[in-house]
């Protein structure tokens, strides 16, 4: 985060120093894109907040801890694809699962689907990529994530 602030400030100062008019044009374009995205973004944040309330960490641990084998992997893939959990919650959660004895395969499938597939963020993705491309990207990522998860399970 500090790096992003630093880079932004440096770029802004450099840009202002070279050409003020161009800089304001750039800021205007950036702000316009941000304002366009804002309603969809807030709606997704609301969805995620409600989701995390309905399905708290404890429920996820219970869901993923209960079953192993094919059913465990299927549950992990489903939860990982739908859930939108920030990395700073997801990795500690995965660690807890491993300590509880959940297999590496299940944890890996959960983490990879969580990272690569975003069902709740689809409304935002539609706005940029259209329905066709966004759905295809998520479907391919879903299968990719399962392959990666299973491979990690083979090696660990």
């Amino acid at each position, binding site marked *: 985060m500090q790096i*992003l602030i630093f880079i932004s400030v440096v770029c802004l100062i450099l840009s202002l120093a070279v050409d003020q008019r161009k800089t304001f044009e750039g800021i*205007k374009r*950036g702000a316009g894109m941000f304002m366009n*995205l804002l309603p969809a*973004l807030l709606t997704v944040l609301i969805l995620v907040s409600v989701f995390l309330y309905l399905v708290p960490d404890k429920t996820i641990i219970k869901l993923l801890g209960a079953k192993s084998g094919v059913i465990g992997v299927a549950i992990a893939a489903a939860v990982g694809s739908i859930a939108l959990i920030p990395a700073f919650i997801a990795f500690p959660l995965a660690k807890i699962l491993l300590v509880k004895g959940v297999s590496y395969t299940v944890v890996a499938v959960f983490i990879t689907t969580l990272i690569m597939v975003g069902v709740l963020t689809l409304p935002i993705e539609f*706005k940029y*990529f259209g329905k066709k491309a966004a759905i295809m990207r998520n479907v391919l*990522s879903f299968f990719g994530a399962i392959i*990666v998860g299973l491979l990690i399970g083979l090696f660990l």
Partner: protein
Amino acid sequence: MNHKNILKDYFWVILFAIFIIGSLSLSFDPGQKIYANFSQFFLEMITFLPLMFLLVGLFDVWTPKEKIEKHIGHESGIGGTLWVILLATLQAGPLYGAFPVAYMLSHKGASVRNIFIYLGVFSAMKIPMLTFEIGFLGLKFTLLRTLFTLPIFIIIGIIMEKYVGRDFKVRSGTGR
């Protein structure tokens, strides 16, 4: 944008705001907990996304299309792919922050393949996230995941280019 559109765009946001104000004044527990979640995500979003858009806006006015096209466009080959991988690993934040960047790259002539590789690598191989992952799940897990994931994203990029066509352009996010 007229008032009718604003009302339509922010329909759920307004409904949610009413729900939260009601919950807070009536001490309705689920509402308070949902609000706590929301404010955490909102803070995360509002601290980084405006900066991201500032950089995208500046990038837009300063980079000539021909340069981007040459380095990561359709004729750029493996070198172009390496460039987008490098760019994506150096970033941070949730995936929705990568969409405006993807739009900008597409708008400046990046190839469809490279756009989707960029998105994949951004989602799964950002260095700030990897350091966090190593801390919790270990170096071996993280390395294996990264090694297996990268070729998958390159394959996804190639399939996506075939599927949507080489002329596909990412939209500006207005959806209209």
